[in-house]
Structures are given as structure tokens and as C-alpha cells.
């Protein structure tokens, strides 16, 4: 199997995800014939190509519109985050049904999971590019431009602007990184000492799980293999997380330097940045930084003149699959396969990419590592709490005056964060995204840290006006959509959970459904294969504990049907071409 080992995207050996992306862009879909050609070109089975196309949301086998729009459905940057249903509005303006390409092939509109624009207002992707700060007026203009087939390059550039707002800087965000500085230090002190500094710093992974970074590097370094690999996890799929979006753009050098330092420690020649498809717009910038570093002698052969130090990085762009943030699914995706989490053990540190020892770290982790090398372990270790050293970069969004980026020393109190971002009348916060923790006001004195409330960066604020049941439904739909489908409890369970919450919200729930929610949640949590399933029902259990009224208020006192009787007759109506009053049941 040939997987990209080349260092620029124009080379003949592209990554299969990139080939499929190009096909999707050109033909608006991936045809059976294109799949066959791709299988032949990559020398893999047709079923593998078909499985990849089916797995990733951004690929389709049916033609999408020449203007292909995906509205985010996140609680912060989604089409329902304001007062109006923006997707419905645009669909009406353009006479198109969500999920169905208009007959003339001009336009298709559907929805997608959080696109990481949570501090930019309601947002969408059009042919892969983010358009932010949506409102009724902008949608009207968008509809006009689409109707007149105005090419995207003629659209106002301001529409595509992503304005980063950093409200609090600390250790990492205050740094002005000079390219090569950390690497100079690392090379001067050698791999052993560099590893020791990382170990002494107390750095733990910033992607969510918080594994000890020094220990991970040490295990990988010690693992035998034909080659070692460094992978930067820039998949940032947890709804409400957008700090890597900022870091990838403004701290790219430090990130690459962290990866290169890691390569020195573990003895890797090849690295990858796995970039979520939603952030494809960052690709030109990332390539420019990599090129510049090659020119500066900071990437490629003989790095900084060291005869035996060679390392380079490829960027692989995902195609819409939250599960690919899970490190073993990410590696599967790197290998050109559907992102199904692997059997672990063995873990990536010993058996990762192509079965070889592999480090997977988050963007922020690599950046912290680079600065730790420059400043020494004490600089980092002296900040934070006992088991959570250093700082954490939060991406705050939802009901607050100042959504944006905030960096705090670990141990900061939730109430402090809420005050700083101008959140008032707060009903609840969801920390760590839908997979994280839902907390009510009684717990706002708790702290952000691995000991207490940990987060990969997502911090969602919900005020008293918010309907929490709608939030739970949103999360449940997210997990049902993103479950990779591999294991029964998550595949079937997340869908049952979603159906159950829908049923309660539609006023057809009974007390029995509350018990059902609990049991289902426990089952998904304990019996699933990977972290997605283990965390997918947390929000329901938290909600039942802290906000039981959310679920019990809409319940029916009497027996109600599991299903909507009238809806169940729909297929019969279609078959008989009837839609008159007598073909409907009165559900009242």
C-alpha cells in the first residue's frame, strides 16, 4: 500500500483522502467509476475506497450542488444558535430542500457538526470555506450571489474572515517564538536531556485525556521499530473547541518546532499534521510555514546543520468525521482507511502508524513542549496545580458577552472564567464539549484541572433563556451522527438515546422514558469500544442529576404511543398517492 511519504501536495503520490477531495470538488460527487480508478491508482481494494467514501461526511456518491453549503449545527456556531432558523431561511430563499441537491444542480444545503467557528456567530461552509457571522441580511445577499452564479472569489472577502479574539494571555499566548530557538537548545543539550526536561515539566496532553507527555515520549522512544512517527492531532472536532484554530494560524512555528523536538527525542524522520477538513482554509498558511522552515534549515535534511538529524512533515486533511480525533482512528485515517478506533493494546506509542511506534499529541501540547524546551521545566512546572502543571487555553462560547480565547493557569475557578467572559444569568456550563461535563450554578466554584473538571478547551455557556432539553437533543444527535458504527452499544445506543430525547421533547415521553434514559446511558458508557461511546451519554446523566426538571417537565401523565401514529402512515399515503384529510389520523 502506498501512502503519502512526499512533502508537497503536487506530487504523484497523494493521500487517498486528498484524491477523493479533489474528485468531490471537481465532479461534486464520487462516482463508482472514480472509485474504481482510485482503487487501481492506490492499489487497494474497491471496497476500501467505497468504505472510505461512505465514512467521511464530506464525500458523497450523489452529486452535490455547484454551491455546496453545510451549516454548522453546533449550539454556538449553528444555524439554530440565534432566534431564527437560518438554514430554513436560506432554503426558502433558494427553493431547496435540506439534504437534496436542487434539480438544476446549482445548490445543495445540509448540515454538519460543529465547524469550530463558535466565537464568530452562526457559520457555514460553502465549498469547504467558512462564512461567519451569518444573519438574515447576509443570507439574502448570499442567495443573490448564488442565483447569479457569482464565483466565490468575487464574494466580499470580509464574509470569509475569521476574527480571533484573545481576551486572556498567559504562559503560551504571551510567547513570541523565534523559529529555531527551542530546537537549538534541544540539539545543544541532546535528546536525553530534552526528554528529561519535558518529563520534569509535568506537561500532560492538552487534547482531553491528559496523558503524561514525557512518559509518552519515553515509551515511544524505547519502543523498537523500523521507523518512528510524530503526529500532530489538529482534528479539533469537539463542539465548542476552537483554540487549535487560533494556534494553527498564529503559533504554527512553535507547533512545528514542538513536533521537530519530539522527532529528535524519539528518533522520527517523518511527521504528520492531521488537520480537520473544516480547517482546510488554513492549508496555504501551514504549507507556507513548512516551506519557510525548510528554507531556514529547520525541516528536511541536516536540520540546523546536524548531519544525522532529518525530519519532515506532511499535512493530511480529514473529511468530516469527529471520531478521527481519537488517536487510533486518526492513525487509521492517516493510513487511508475509515476512522474506526483500533483494538488497544497495543497502543500507538508502540504500534501506531503503519504498525510503528508513533506519538500522537494535540497542537497545544506540542506548542507547550517547544516553549518548555526554551525556558526550562521550572518555568512551566511552577504554574498550575499539583497534577495539572502550566496553563490551559480555553475556547469560550455561547451566552456570554466576550466569546473567544482565554488562557488560564490550571486551577482557575469556573466562576472566575464566567465573570471574565461576561456571562450573566448563567443556567449551566458544559465543559469539555458534549463529551464533557454539564454543571449547574451550585458547582461554579469548581476548578479547571485534571484533578477536577478537565477539558480539551471547549467551554460552553448557557443562560437562563436556553432550553436545556434542546441542548441535550443537539448533543445526542451529534453523537448518533458521529458514532463510527463499529460497536453495538454506541452504534445502536446513541440512536436510541437520540430517539428517546426527541420523543420527550415532542411531548410523547412518559416517566418510563426517564428510567430508560438512565439505563441506556450506563450501557453506552460501560460497554462501548472507545472514548466516543464512553463519553457520549455523560451529558444525559449529568442533566438527570443536576437538572431533572429538564426531562420531567414535558412528560405525559398517561400512556402515549412509542411512535407517531400519523407519521407511521406516511409510507401508506405515498404508496396510494393520497394526502387528503381522511388519509391522516387525528393525533390529538
Amino acid at each position, binding site marked *: 500500500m502506498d501512502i503519502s511519504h512526499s512533502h508537497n501536495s503536487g506530487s504523484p503520490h497523494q493521500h487517498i483522502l486528498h484524491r477523493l477531495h479533489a474528485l468531490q470538488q471537481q465532479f461534486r460527487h464520487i462516482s463508482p467509476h472514480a472509485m474504481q480508478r482510485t482503487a487501481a491508482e492506490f492499489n487497494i481494494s474497491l*471496497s476500501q475506497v467505497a*468504505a472510505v467514501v461512505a*465514512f467521511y461526511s464530506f464525500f458523497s456518491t450523489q452529486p452535490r450542488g455547484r454551491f455546496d453549503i453545510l451549516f454548522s449545527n453546533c449550539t454556538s456556531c449553528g444555524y439554530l444558535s440565534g432566534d431564527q432558523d437560518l438554514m430554513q431561511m436560506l432554503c426558502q430563499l433558494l427553493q431547496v430542500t435540506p439534504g437534496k441537491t436542487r434539480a438544476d444542480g446549482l445548490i445543495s444545503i445540509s448540515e454538519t457538526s460543529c465547524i469550530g467557528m463558535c466565537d464568530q456567530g452562526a457559520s457555514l461552509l460553502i465549498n469547504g470555506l467558512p462564512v461567519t457571522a451569518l444573519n438574515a441580511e447576509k443570507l439574502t445577499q448570499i442567495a443573490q450571489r448564488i442565483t447569479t452564479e457569482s464565483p466565490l472569489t468575487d464574494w466580499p472577502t470580509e464574509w470569509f474572515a475569521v476574527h480571533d479574539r484573545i481576551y486572556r494571555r498567559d504562559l503560551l499566548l504571551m510567547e513570541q517564538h523565534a523559529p529555531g530557538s527551542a530546537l537549538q537548545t534541544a540539539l545543544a543539550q541532546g535528546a536525553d536531556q530534552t526528554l528529561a526536561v519535558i518529563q520534569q515539566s509535568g506537561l500532560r496532553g492538552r487534547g482531553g485525556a491528559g496523558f503524561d507527555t514525557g512518559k509518552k515520549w519515553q515509551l515511544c522512544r524505547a519502543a523498537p521499530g523500523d521507523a518512528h512517527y510524530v503526529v500532530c492531532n489538529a482534528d479539533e472536532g469537539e463542539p465548542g473547541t476552537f483554540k487549535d484554530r487560533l494556534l494553527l494560524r498564529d503559533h504554527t512555528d512553535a507547533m512545528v518546532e514542538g513536533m521537530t523536538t519530539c522527532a529528535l527525542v524519539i528518533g522520527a524522520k517523518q511527521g504528520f499534521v492531521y488537520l480537520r477538513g473544516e480547517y482546510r482554509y488554513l492549508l496555504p498558511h501551514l504549507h507556507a510555514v513548512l516551506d519557510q522552515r525548510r528554507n531556514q534549515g529547520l525541516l528536511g535534511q541536516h536540520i540546523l546543520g546536524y548531519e544525522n538529524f532529518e525530519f519532515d512533515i506532511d499535512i493530511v486533511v480529514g473529511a468530516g468525521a469527529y471520531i478521527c480525533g481519537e488517536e487510533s482512528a486518526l492513525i487509521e485515517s492517516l493510513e487511508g482507511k475509515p476512522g474506526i478506533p483500533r483494538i488497544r493494546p497495543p497502543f500507538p506509542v508502540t504500534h501506531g502508524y503503519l504498525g510503528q511506534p508513533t506519538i500522537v499529541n494535540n497542537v497545544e501540547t506540542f506548542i507547550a513542549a517547544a516553549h518548555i524546551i526554551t525556558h526550562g521545566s521550572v518555568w512551566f512546572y511552577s504554574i498550575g496545580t499539583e497534577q495539572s502543571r502550566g496553563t490551559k487555553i480555553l475556547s469560550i462560547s455561547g451566552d456570554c458577552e466576550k466569546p473567544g480565547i482565554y488562557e488560564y493557569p490550571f486551577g482557575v475557578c469556573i466562576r472566575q472564567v464566567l465573570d471574565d467572559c461576561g456571562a450573566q444569568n448563567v443556567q449551566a456550563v458544559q465543559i469539555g464539549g458534549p463529551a464533557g461535563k454539564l454543571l449547574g450554578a451550585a458547582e461554579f466554584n469548581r476548578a479547571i484541572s485534571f484533578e477536577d473538571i478537565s477539558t480539551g478547551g471547549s467551554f460552553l455557556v448557557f443562560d437562563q433563556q436556553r432550553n436545556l432539553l434542546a441542548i441535550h437533543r443537539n448533543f445526542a444527535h451529534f453523537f448518533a451522527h458521529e458514532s*463510527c458504527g463499529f460497536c*453495538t452499544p454506541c*452504534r445502536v445506543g446513541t440512536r*436510541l438515546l437520540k430517539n428517546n430525547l426527541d420523543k420527550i421533547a415532542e411531548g410523547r415521553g412518559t416517566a418510563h422514558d426517564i428510567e430508560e434514559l438512565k439505563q441506556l446511558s450506563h450501557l453506552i458508557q460501560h*460497554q462501548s*469500544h472507545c472514548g466516543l461511546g464512553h463519553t457520549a451519554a455523560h451529558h444525559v446523566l449529568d442533566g438527570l442529576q443536576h437538572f431533572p426538571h429538564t426531562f420531567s417537565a414535558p412528560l405525559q401523565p398517561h400512556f402515549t404511543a412509542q*411512535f407517531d401514529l400519523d407519521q407511521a402512515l406516511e409510507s401508506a399515503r405515498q404508496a396510494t398517492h393520497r394526502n387528503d384529510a381522511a388519509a391522516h389520523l387525528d393525533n390529538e
Partner: protein
Amino acid sequence: MSDNPSTIRIDGQEIPFTAGQTIMDAALAAGIYIPHLCHYSGLPPSGNCRLCVVENGNRSVAACITPAVTGQEIRNNTPELNEARKAITQMLFVEGNHICPSCEKTGNCKLQAMAYHLGMLDDHFPQFYQRRELDASHPEILLDRSRCILCDLCVRASRDMDQKNVFAIAGRGTDAHLIVNTPSGKLADSTMAVTDLAANICPVGAILIKEIGYEVPIGQRIYDQQTIRETGLQEHVDRKNDD
């Protein structure tokens, strides 16, 4: 904990294991049944059905993919775990379209046998009624995806034993479905034969060999004679070329 370096305990019973064995391997070798649907001794394990989830300390692990490690104290046959297994079996029943009374696999079906084993009396969850494609193109083999439980056994059997790689699973979440590795997507265009392991390993009535459906009368079928526990302890395939 025992002093013997290569033993684990399952529900208090101490059993030996050899290096490289999973908890499932060790259990089956010792005559201890851990319920499973996607595992078949001799094929590489997958871990997708999750019926074999056991408790190791305070962690839940799938026995078929978790290495046996000296001193493990495993809980397997507990009321809580069997309840969870029953719920998972019910999930599989409502996800697909299982027509037991009229299915020609009835009595030979592992999903059905598992339901009996776990004392499942109803579906519990609302049915999904998913529409799934039927493939009757092959002259001798029928593929009815409505009854597929996505156990991946035919995929592994075809790839690792038959060396034909006829199947794969594609699609995410409940869109996951079995696909055939041919340009038409039809079984008729594959090299699949009735003698393939893949044609005979399906635990349910999703892959059926045509024209033999009712040769064995109901009442004399596998699970009319024995329980799934007994089958589970006995059956295995030998790998042709162990690599």
C-alpha cells in the same frame, strides 16, 4: 491472587493461559463460556458486538480483544453483565429486521440462541425498521442485509481464510452496512462460492445458502439440540497459514 505466573481468575475460578492468549481464548480453553457473537475461535478477533464485555477490576473490557495478564480477577457471569448482554442483544434485534418465525435460519441462528440463553422475552426497544438492500444475484447464495448484525465474521473469513476479500463494512453509525467488493456491488460478480467459510459463518440469516433452507426440519436444528453455550465452547476454525 495466585503465585502461579500464568493464571487468571474468572468468577473466582483459576484458569491457566499461555502468552498471547486473550481472556476469551483462555476462558474457552478452560471450558468457561463468555457470551459472544462476533468472535469465532481461529479468526482474528474484532470486538464489535460487545457481548463479551467482562469486568477487570473496575474496568469494563471486551474479553475477545483483551490480553490475559497474570493475576487478573475477571467477573463474567454476573446478573449485571448478563442484563447488559441482554440489552445489547435486544439492540441488535431492533436495529435490523428480524423475522424469526419465517426466517429459514430459525433454530440455527446465534442471535436467536443468544436471546434464549439470556432470557430475553421481548425487544424492549422500539424497532428501527431500517430499509436495507437485499442481494439475490448470486445463483447459490443469498445476502439479506436486513438480518445482518454487522459482526464482521464474513469479512474476516473471506479475507483471512478464503483469501478472497469479498466483503467490507461501510458507512457510519446506523448507516453501517455490508458491501461487496465488486464494481456492481453484487455478490454474483464476486468469486464467492458456497464452500467458502464466509458463506457458512454468518451467525444470523443474512448470508444464506440457497435451496437448503428447510432440509433440516424445525425441532432438529442446532439450537433445538444444544445451547449456544455449548456451540460457543466447541466451535473453531484452523487458520490455513498462520502468520
